[in-house]
């Protein structure tokens, strides 16, 4: 039996990063992965979707804005399968990179399904059914999560699909009903709509991207309307039926039922943890009511020696949060210097068009928590760089505490706003105030000037408005 200091179960962005950090800290480390090195993120999630979204951006410009930019076509042909092929190449390249990183850090990789047989023992079963027993002083669980479905609706991968089939299929549907207006729903809406699919999004809550600040949801809703994406908010899905040539989705709101017909339906209502079948119940690892593994600030579960990170812990289901948890976890195992995480202050990015990025409290949350707040806003409409890019919708909104000037949150919608977040999260992390951001000179012309102006607005003296 091979013995390790640390065995990581699941090689997604949480698991493989935890393994690297553990190995760097001198721990003998192995990682077990049943399907993909790099996990959902690299293979069928964050990465290939960003590649598709770039194609979508170009497609949208050519199809809808050719006249504005001065391109004329007699017969514009869009090959969606080429976009998918490109996304697979991007994905594969990064997956190879993970393999290389494992080798470079002397991490043993076991491809197979893991099951815990004791609190310090695991069995890996590979595709051919061969088993291998490992013993580990510490086990890091990072098995991730899977897409949830509405009770009674079967995801068959053809007519009703999850993000996984949706990202791998080489054609776009002619028409689609997207159930759920979270990050996955709105990103696929953006991709398909750009290629000419008739898109309808159904959302139970009052706005698209319902967990974001209210103003952001309203702004994105407006942009979607303009792009021809139909949004049915405040609508519940009653049933999803398969027909000969697609699906029939019945939705309802206060004024009655509506029937939507489409070639496909995309189920994007959320995620459930992959906590079953690992042997956790037998060992007594504590789960919460929804099946997520409970952890403390160190990423430790209730069973000594068993740790958990990433989507499996249900804190904030984002790749970079999983990676950060992985680093903290490995450092705690090794007894190295580390930090604790404030999940509320983690950056969040959604790559619809226009992009949405945020961290911290929404305006409503801040008020609810009793803060006296100042809100600074600045629109991209008067930003030179945004106008040059032809991307003027959107704005930046900074929420700051009146008493001590602490930045409580920021909400951005507009061009490349995901790239603008780090300045603000660093400021929040180091407890800088809007005053420091507004006095930080930003190059001209850049999109980031909008941050500076929004900070000026918090201080009460915008320059360019």
């Amino acid at each position, binding site marked *: 039996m091979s013995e390790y*200091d640390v065995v990581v179960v699941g090689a997604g962005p949480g698991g493989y990063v935890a393994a690297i950090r553990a190995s760097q800290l001198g*721990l003998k480390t192995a990682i077990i992965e049943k399907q993909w090195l790099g996990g959902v993120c690299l293979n069928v999630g964050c990465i290939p979707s960003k590649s598709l979204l770039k194609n979508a951006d170009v497609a949208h410009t050519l199809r809808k804005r050719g006249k504005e930019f001065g391109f004329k076509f007699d017969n514009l042909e869009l090959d969606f399968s080429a976009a998918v092929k490109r996304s697979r190449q991007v994905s594969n390249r990064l997956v190879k990179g993970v393999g290389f990183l494992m080798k470079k850090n002397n991490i043993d990789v076991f491809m197979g399904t893991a099951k815990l047989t004791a609190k310090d023992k695991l069995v890996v079963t590979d595709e051919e059914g061969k088993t291998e027993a490992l013993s580990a*002083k*510490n086990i890091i669980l990072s098995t991730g999560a899977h897409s949830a479905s509405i009770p009674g609706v079967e995801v068959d991968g053809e007519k009703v699909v999850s993000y996984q089939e949706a990202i791998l299929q080489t054609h776009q549907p002619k028409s689609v009903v997207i159930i759920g207006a979270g990050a996955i729903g709105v990103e696929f809406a953006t991709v398909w709509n750009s290629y000419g699919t008739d898109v309808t999004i159904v959302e139970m809550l009052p706005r698209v991207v319902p967990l974001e600040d209210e103003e952001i949801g309203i702004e994105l809703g407006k942009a979607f309307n303009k792009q021809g994406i139909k949004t049915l908010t405040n609508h519940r899905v009653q049933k999803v039926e398969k027909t000969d040539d697609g699906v029939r989705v019945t939705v309802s709101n206060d004024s009655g039922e509506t029937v939507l017909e489409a070639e496909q339906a995309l189920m994007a209502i959320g995620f459930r943890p992959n906590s079953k079948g690992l042997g956790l119940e037998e060992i007594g690892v504590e789960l919460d009511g929804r099946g997520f593994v409970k952890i403390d*600030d*160190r990423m430790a579960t209730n069973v*000594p*020696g068993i740790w958990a990170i990433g989507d499996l812990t249900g804190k904030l289901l984002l790749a970079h949060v999983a990676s950060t948890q992985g680093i*903290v976890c490995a450092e*705690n*195992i*090794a*007894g*190295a*210097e*580390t*930090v*604790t995480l404030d999940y509320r202050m983690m950056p969040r990015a959604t790559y619809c068009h226009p992009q949405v990025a945020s961290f911290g409290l929404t305006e409503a949350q801040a008020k609810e928590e009793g803060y006296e707040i100042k809100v600074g806003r600045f629109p991209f409409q008067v930003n030179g760089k945004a106008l040059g890019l032809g991307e003027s919708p959107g704005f930046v909104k900074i929420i700051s505490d009146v008493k*001590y*000037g*602490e930045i409580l949150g920021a909400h951005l919608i507009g061009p490349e706003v995901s790239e603008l977040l780090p300045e603000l999260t660093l400021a929040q992390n*180091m*407890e*800088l*105030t809007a*005053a*420091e951001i507004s006095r930080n000179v930003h190059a001209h012309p850049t999109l980031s000037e909008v941050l500076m102006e929004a900070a000026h607005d918090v201080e009460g003296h915008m320059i360019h408005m």
Partner: protein
Amino acid sequence: MATKVVMPQLGESVVEGTVMKWLRQEGEAIEEFDSLLEVESAKVNTEIPSPADGVLLKILVPEGTTVNAGTIIAWVGEPGEVIPMEESGEPSPQSMMEKPSKKETETTTSQDVRPAEQKVGRDRDLGFISPVVAKLAREKHVDLYQINGTGQGGRITKKDVLNFLETKSQDSTTEPEVAAWETPGEGDLFRPTELQFPDRFKKSSQEEQKDKISPQVLSHAAIKEDKLVPHSNMRRSIAAHMVKSVSTAPHVTTVMEADLSAVVRHRAFYKEKYAQENVRLTFTPYFMLASVAALKAYPMVNSSWQEDGILLRKAIHMGMATSLGEEGLIVPVIKHADNYSLMGMARVVNDLGDRAKNHQLKPDEVLGGTFTITNHGTSGSLFATPIINQPQCAILGVGIIKKRAVVIQDAIAIRPMVYLSLTFDHRILDGASADGFLAEIVKNLETWT
């Protein structure tokens, strides 16, 4: 062939050493120059490196045992190798046949999240104070030095300040941070403060309750069996030094005060710059250099009493008394202290201080001092009468640096003041010359540029 490990001679006059801790177990692999054991001699702990590659074959001297320098204390060699009999003396043939057992290295798992270590107290660098924390501290009159930082690199975060305030408010015995009469600029100066700000003098209902029930809180010391704490080598050594010193030299102490405005200004200006060079600039280097210059002006202080005369030392080797907490104290020596710039001095002070606290001083680094400074002010002491570190002539005691009201040209000013006490050997110096020397140090500090 197996290589022997011998107890090293840890200094010219040191003839024996105590094995404190074996850092490897028998059978464990070790590389040449890896630390093999810790040895204590007189007051210094030293790590002894392995003389060769291989495994630790046999430990001959168990932990806690004192042996003469030169004694073979262990053998290092290839696994299973035979130890030369005539030299080892002790090992039985059986023990030599033992196969080295693989010792598992324990994975240490800390129970708490471990942020960077940062001690509470004056003698520390607060590091980056965020604007949010600064604002909060100003408003709540919080002394940030009292707060343990849990942020990255020990940074004090807003959360830390709030936690501190919370625990403080729970602790009813804590005095209010700022007394009412110390808050300036509010109300009528000529009315009694109690009448103007009655709420500041209100007792909490809890306190009033307490007053009623038991006007006097008696302390009940628990009766426990008395306990003998065995002397450590360090404790013994300190005791011997102290007794010898007071019984040989007639001690006299003289005290002066110094206005540190110039030094404080200088330090505030250079602190950041030094920090960029990774040098922590404390006040100690200033006292060191001010004393070095004074020693040059008064060479008689840099001396030793001998029966046939007073031995004037040419070299200036400054001792720096460093507290190791309950464990004791140690005096690392800055050799040729007159060769250092302020930055060089700051660097060597930090280095010796850090290594003293971590028990990493080399034996020679605590020998040969010609003058000593003890900074008892770091623990709050105003002034003290320290004992001379023999065979030196004098020791400078530095008190706490405090803002005091002083009279300058018939006006009251607030100045960072310090009491400096010089304890000297009256066989060598008389009061007037000792005062001259101390006044020179004061002058050097007050005119610092």
